[in-house]
Every structure is written in C-alpha cells, then in structure tokens.
C-alpha cells in the first residue's frame, strides 16, 4: 500500500503529485525571473532599511527620553505586528495617497507594485536592523567613546569616526542574516501580485492545474538560497570572533 503510493509519486503525473515538475520546460523562465525578483526585492529592502535603522538606533541610545521613546515605539510597532498587515496598510493606505509612476525596473518589475512593496519591507526591516545596530554600537567598548570625547571630538564626530566603523564589523553578519530573513518574508508580497517566487508558483499552479509541484519547487528554491548562505555567514562570524581575540 505504502509502496504503491510512494511509486505513484514519481510515476503518476497527476496534478496532486508532490514531484510533478512537468511545468518546468514551459515555465522555467518565469521561475528564474521570480527568483531574480525575490533577490532584488529582499536585498534592496534591507539596503533601504540601513539608513533609517541607523537613525533609529542612535535615537534609541539618545540621552533624551522623548527621542528614545519615539524610536522605541516605532521598533515595537513594526516588530509586534505581522508583516502582511503592514504591507496591506502601506499599500492600500499610504500608496492610495501617493501615486507611483508606472515604469519597468530591469524590464520585468512593475514599479507601481514594487515601490510600495519595497517601502513596506524596508520600514519593517529597519525596526529589526535598528536593533542589530544598537547591539553593534553597544558592543564597542565604552572607553572608545571616552577616548574620542576626551580629545575634544563631538558626540557626532566620535560616532562617525570611532564607534560606527567598529560597530559595522560587529554588525555585518547579522545584517546578512537579515537579508536571508527578508528572502523568506518577502513572499508575503505575492498578495500584491508582485511576481516573486511565491506569486510565480501560484500563477503556474493556476494555469497548469498542477497544484503542489510549483510550491514544492518554491520551497526547494528558498531552501537552496537561504540554508547555504546562512552556513557561510556562520563560518565567517566564527572566523571574525577568532580574529578579535588577538
């Protein structure tokens, strides 16, 4: 009984087959474009999050309580609500007021969906990256700031010349991990019809009537992107920690 079912997985090309990838010859190109879309979307989102996150992190470390609270509230709001909800509110709320001009990015990305999507993901990511930066800044020995200030440098100059260059090194692996998280999280953008991996899988499923195969392929692609990358980052992180001891 089990063997019959197991064999049928590979032989029987029914629509409910887990490993029915018969759509590939025809839709392979769409899948590749979906992967490109996901990668562009996640990398740009995290990059866009860097500057606001830096601002949020420094605000979070400010002496002024009001400034600290504003940043804290932003971070709490974005970390404690689902990204899907944020995406909906930003797309239907904010971008019903702001009209994005329609043009194609890299020839296949529709700006009217991409820009709201990137905005939502970047706003969400900036809350997480802010916490990464904050930890990175706090990891720099407090004597560094004191030494810089004792020479007469301002708070800002000390941050820029002494603290941040050292914090960046602490922070790079965590930032790379954030990109990996974003590769997975960006799948929510399918609800806006952004042609990333998940949307492509759904579209293929719809037009070929193969229900499971495309999603299995999507899962496989996500795994192949994120797992090896996270292992490489882990290794780099370990090597960096060893380097610090000298």
């Amino acid at each position, binding site marked *: 009984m089990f063997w019959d079912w197991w064999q049928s997985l590979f032989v029987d090309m029914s629509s409910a087959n887990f490993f029915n990838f018969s759509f590939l010859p025809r839709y392979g190109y769409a899948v590749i474009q979906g992967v490109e879309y996901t990668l562009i979307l996640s990398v740009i989102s995290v990059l866009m999050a860097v500057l606001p996150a830096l601002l949020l992190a420094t605000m979070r470390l400010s002496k002024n309580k009001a400034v600290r609270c504003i940043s804290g509230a932003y971070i709490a709001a974005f970390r404690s609500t689902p990204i899907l909800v944020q995406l909906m509110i930003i797309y239907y709320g904010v971008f019903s007021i702001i009209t994005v001009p329609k043009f194609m990015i890299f020839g296949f990305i529709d700006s009217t969906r991409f820009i709201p999507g990137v905005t939502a993901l970047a706003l969400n990511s900036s809350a997480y990256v802010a916490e990464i930066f904050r930890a990175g800044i706090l990891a720099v020995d407090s004597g560094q700031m004191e030494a810089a200030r004792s*020479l*007469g440098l301002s708070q800002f100059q000390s941050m820029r*010349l002494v603290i941040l260059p050292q914090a960046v090194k602490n922070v790079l692996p965590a930032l790379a991990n954030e990109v990996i998280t974003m590769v997975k999280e960006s799948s929510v953008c399918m609800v806006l019809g952004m042609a990333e991996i998940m949307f492509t899988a759904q579209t293929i499923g719809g037009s070929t009537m193969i229900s499971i195969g495309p999603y299995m392929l999507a899962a496989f692609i996500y795994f192949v992107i994120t797992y090896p990358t996270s292992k490489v980052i882990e290794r780099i992180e370990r090597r960096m920690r060893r380097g610090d001891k000298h």
Partner: protein
Amino acid sequence: MGTNTDYIISVEDLVKEYNGGKVVALDHCSLNVKKGQVIAIIGPSGSGKSTMLRSLNLLEEPTSGKIYFNVIDLTSKGVDINKHRQKIGMVFQHFNLFPHKTVLENITMAPVTLKKQTEEESKETALNLLERVGLIDKAYEYPNMLSGGQKQRIAIVRALAMEPEVMLFDEPTSALDPEMVGEVLDVMKELAAEGMTMIVVTHEMGFAREVADEIIFMSDGRIIERGSPVQIFENPENQRTKNFIDKVL
C-alpha cells in the same frame, strides 16, 4: 577662588552622587592646580580618585560643585566642553587606542578632524612625538600588534598631539605587566620635567614620591590629606593616610 588666575584648574565643592544620592562617589572635594604642577592622587580603590579625575574634563558630570579651567567654569551652561577638552589631555588605564586605525591615524585623527593642523603638519607632529617615545617604527602598525607599554606610550602621544595645557592620567600603569611600567613612567617623568601640568591617579608610590609636587590622599570620596611627598609619605597627619601609606610602602 575659581577666578584666581594662578590656577589652571580649580575645583570647588565637587559632589558626585549615583542612584539619586544612594552612592556618594565624591563628597565636597576641592582642589587647586597651578600651571606646571604635578599632582598625584592616591588612595584605596573605590575612594573616588578616578571619579575626581574624570570629572575634570566632564567625562563624569558632577552632581554639584564647580570646575574651573583657565578661570572658565566648565559646569556652567553654554560652555562648549569639546573646545576645552582639546586643551585637557587624558590617558586611560586601558589605553583606549582606536583599534581600526593605525598608530599614526590614532594620533592625527583629532588634530586633523578638529582643524587644529593640516594633515601634513599633523603627521609631522605625530612622527616627532613618536620619535621622542621611541616608537617611530610603529607608526604604520595597528594597536593590536603592540605591547601594553607601547600602547600606553602611544596613548600619551595621542593626547599630546592636541597640545594640551594639562594632562590627566587615570591609573596609566595599572593594566601593564610589571616589566612595562618603567617605560611608561619614564615618558611621564620626561613630560613632568618639561613643565607639563599633570594630574595623575596612581598606585605607583615611587613615582608619586619622586615626581609629584603635591600628593592628595583620598578615601571614601573625600580628600583626607594633602601635602608635599615628604609630608604625606613620612609624616602623615591623618590616621587613615598613615594606615594606607604603611600598607602600600
């Protein structure tokens, strides 16, 4: 007192409290420093020596009291502390060199950033100073390649590059291996001989005795006794000073 132009630094009634007054680190301390004087602050750990020193350039913000530097009250509102800190050099127990910058960059960063000198001038000053402390061959190395004694000599040079009027030393030899203490103290002695005004928190009683013009003994956040090295080391008046001196000598 604070407006007396004889004094380069004058501290009046300095109080530093933590946790809303539960911990008193400095309890109404006053101090006058004349130009060219070398003052050593000694005392048991936790006596407030470091807090006192770190208050002088406002790394610690005093709870109350006044700190005059060249007759200007640093604690009053509207004082640009960054400007005054340029004239108050500081050397730390743990060196605090910038690990991402070369020795030369460590020294030139502040003078160049604060437009005290051009990059060229600053480099020349730095190399001259490095020559004087015998570390010119380390100019292009990174701090983590150096020994503790070398790091501390460079930290001194970094502070000197700003051409300060006074130098603060916060236990500059406490983190060093014993065999490296001498090379750092030698640089400090030379500096004192050149007439630099210095305030030194130290456990090196030999150095304090030999180099300081005045010794200040602190305990429990208070200045217990002050006087010449001979007086403090040989004829302490206060019993606590006596106990401390007996223990450390």
